[in-house]
């Protein structure tokens, strides 16, 4: 589903954020990218959804070398990728339902599809009764659920989660992890960057560890370190 071949990425004149990284992620896998801040986890996610392009090496997603596709085709690539962030990136002037609907609206989905998909996905994330609330009326965990609903409403092949539990207390974080696990069981590949040791150790999934841009460990059913 995702393959990186000898990928190197440098920002400006600094030391490479990612150096000569190679790994492959199979369809339906759940994988953690771990390492301290600045180790290159986020950069890897940004390379996979083509927010960044590598200097060397190639990134393959769903059988395509995404560094070779035309700029105009990037939006269609992104429709196969859901993104979840530590700060949720919700639109504060829209309700929960509108935030989720927005993701479908802007890729031109017809109204009746939106009317059917949005309540279904809100039900999946456990917010069926909060569609009319605004983000500021929700707890952090609920806001993250909205962001997951928005990322998943289009049924992407892959979910990219960048520190999704970073702003949440442990219990709420666990709830989010159960939700991601549930989404994973539907066949969606989940790639999650985190430095939350507890959660990695609890989940016992594949772990790729980065240290200053270099992959130092790639372990099935791994722990944080």
């Amino acid at each position, binding site marked *: 589903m995702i393959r990186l071949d000898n990928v190197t990425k440098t920002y400006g004149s600094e030391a490479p954020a990612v150096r000569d990284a190679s790994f492959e992620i199979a369809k339906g896998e759940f994988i953690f990218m771990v390492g301290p801040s600045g180790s290159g986890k986020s950069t890897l996610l940004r390379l996979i*959804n083509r927010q960044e392009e590598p200097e060397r090496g190639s990134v393959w997603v769903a059988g395509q070398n995404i560094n070779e596709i035309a700029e*105009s085709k990037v*939006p*269609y*690539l*992104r*429709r196969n*990728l859901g*993104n979840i962030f530590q700060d949720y*990136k919700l*639109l504060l002037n829209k309700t929960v339902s509108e935030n989720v609907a*927005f*993701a479908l*609206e*802007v*890729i*031109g*989905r*017809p*109204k009746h599809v939106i009317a059917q998909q949005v309540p279904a996905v809100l039900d999946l994330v456990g917010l069926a009764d909060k569609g009319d609330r605004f983000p500021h009326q929700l707890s952090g965990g609920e806001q993250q659920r909205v962001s997951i609903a*928005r*990322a998943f409403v*289009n049924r992407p092949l892959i979910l990219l989660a960048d520190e999704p539990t970073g702003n949440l207390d442990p219990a709420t974080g666990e709830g989010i992890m159960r939700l991601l696990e549930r989404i994973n069981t539907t066949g969606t590949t989940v790639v999650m960057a985190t430095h939350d040791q507890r959660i990695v150790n609890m989940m016992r999934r594949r772990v790729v560890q980065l240290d200053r841009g270099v992959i130092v460990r790639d372990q099935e059913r791994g722990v944080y370190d």
Partner: protein
Amino acid sequence: MLTRISYALRETWVSFRRNITLTGAAVVTSAVSLLLVGSTFLIQRAFDNLLTRWKGDVELIVYVRSDADATQIEVIKGALESQASIIDVAKLRYLNQAESYAEAEKLFAGDPGTLRLLTPANIPSQFKVVPISQDSNLIRELGEQFRNIPGVREVAYAQDVFDVVARVSQFIRVATTVMSIVLLVVAVGLIWNTVRTAMFARRREIEVMKLVGATNWFIRIPFMLEGLLQGVIGGVLSCLGLWGLNTAWSGAVADFNDTELAALVVTDGYMRFVMVILLLIGAIAGAVGSGIAASRFLDV
């Protein structure tokens, strides 16, 4: 498709209202610059009308001294009529003092000081001469001969006035064109800035749109429509202003119906043509300003 269109229109409207101060500035600037463009067109047209009318009309006026007697006038008339190869004798027209005064009353209606100096008794009478010959040197030579005939006060060449008017019209044309181009550039800049500000205000939305896979055109179009709308509204306002100006002007000139000034009126047909041009320029200015902004500031 319908979802996309209604989305684009809704977003355009929301953004248009949200930024009302900047939007107002952009609209007013484009309206003023377009009004100037339109005025340039109309002034030009009015001068062209005037010049065309003069070109095909009187080119030489022989003023007769107010104290000239009937015999002297007959001599001048005879001398003019004998030059049938150069002038159109059939169109030769003599205005006596009463007629000349009536004409002066109209010409100097806006200048009572000059008019006060004239009376039906001291005003020169005049022969209005329409030449057949196109050769202005020949006409000038003829005029010089008439200077020396007793009773002739002055010989005036329409060509001289024509040259002055043509020069004034040329000057006005250059000045208004330069001013309207400068203002148009300012208007494009303001539209650019308004759209850029609108995009900056909505950078979170744009970021989310890009992440969920909205195409660049889908993101751009509402902003481009916003700029286009600003340009078109500016165009409509300038059309209204120009219409008002032209109506007022035509009303003022109507008082001089049988003088040359009447030629300064611009017809409604041409007015409509200018209005269409203004709307087009407004739309293009809006599209250019917002187009540049929308393609340059999408990386937020």
